């Protein structure tokens, strides 16, 4: 089972529909400072329901929506989707759509579901949603905290 594709439209700096195909083993994302690399990482956290403004690097929830650019008007919605490849058992698609009005929708293979449904489906398939599977920029130093009980919390994520 692996992540086959990420699609972003209206999420942060992605004011154009962008599809990123991923290699089943290893994909390296490169680019100049401020081009949008970490925004891609944030998009997966956001899709899987991360609520923390700090880890999503936004001052408020509507700031995930494309603010516009030099010649482009701001959007009213933000849309992120992933396609998961199940090897012999086909594939499935998970999407999140958010509107500036505050309306929020999670979609599984075209059907609207709750976030809870998505998370329980993913964890039964061994998708592993522990916080250690996504390490944001600068986080590597904090997992080795100087405080022994903080280190324990890191292990408890998977226990």
């Amino acid at each position, binding site marked *: 089972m692996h992540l086959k594709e990420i699609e972003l439209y209206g999420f942060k700096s992605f004011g154009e529909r962008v599809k990123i195909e*991923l290699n089943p083993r290893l994909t*390296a994302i490169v680019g100049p400072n401020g081009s949008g690399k970490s925004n891609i990482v944030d998009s997966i956290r956001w899709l899987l329901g991360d609520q923390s403004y700090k880890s999503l690097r936004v001052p408020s929830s509507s700031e995930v929506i494309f603010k516009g650019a030099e010649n482009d008007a701001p959007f009213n919605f933000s849309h992120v989707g992933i396609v998961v490849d199940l090897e012999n058992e086909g594939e499935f698609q998970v999407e999140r759509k958010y509107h500036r009005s505050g309306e929020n929708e999670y979609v599984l293979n075209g059907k609207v579901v709750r976030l809870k449904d998505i998370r329980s489906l993913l964890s039964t398939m061994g998708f592993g949603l522990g916080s250690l599977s996504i*390490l944001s920029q600068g986080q590597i130093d904090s997992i080795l905290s100087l405080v022994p009980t903080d280190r324990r919390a890191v292990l408890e994520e998977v226990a």
Partner: protein
Amino acid sequence: KKNFKEVFDQAKINFEEIFHNLFPEGKAELSLSDPSNLLESGLDIRVEFPGKKELDLLQFSGGERSIIAIIFLFSILKTKPPSFVILDEVEAALDDINVDKFIKLMRQFSDKFQFIIVTHNKLTMEYAGELRGVTMKKGGMSQVVSISIDDWLSEYADTLN
């Protein structure tokens, strides 16, 4: 859910094994600060790099802390492998010798989980082979292209001159 002790015992074996594999002449140990109190005990990490005395975590260098943190991360992930792992510039503080060790680690785990990594490091790019270049050609709007490392490095070099 596994219980804490089971996960700890497994992570301990992994941590000591992975460290020994990357630094054969060094020593590493993961232990419980208070084994009699499983419910609250913290974790102690003791590491000796080859040729050096044992140090408090505070005394290691920026790069040494990063490589220990990466090994700690992999030793925990190995106890319950997720299907994918996303790492955003985790090797930024490493010199080329330690980047090589990070690459060796990724190679050893490449059949366990899918890696998606963000990097500025040319050695890491070379190992990955397949790159996705993110740019903002039109001001403020991200675009992504599939690109080979040679095209990326020559395109990049152009923007510099």
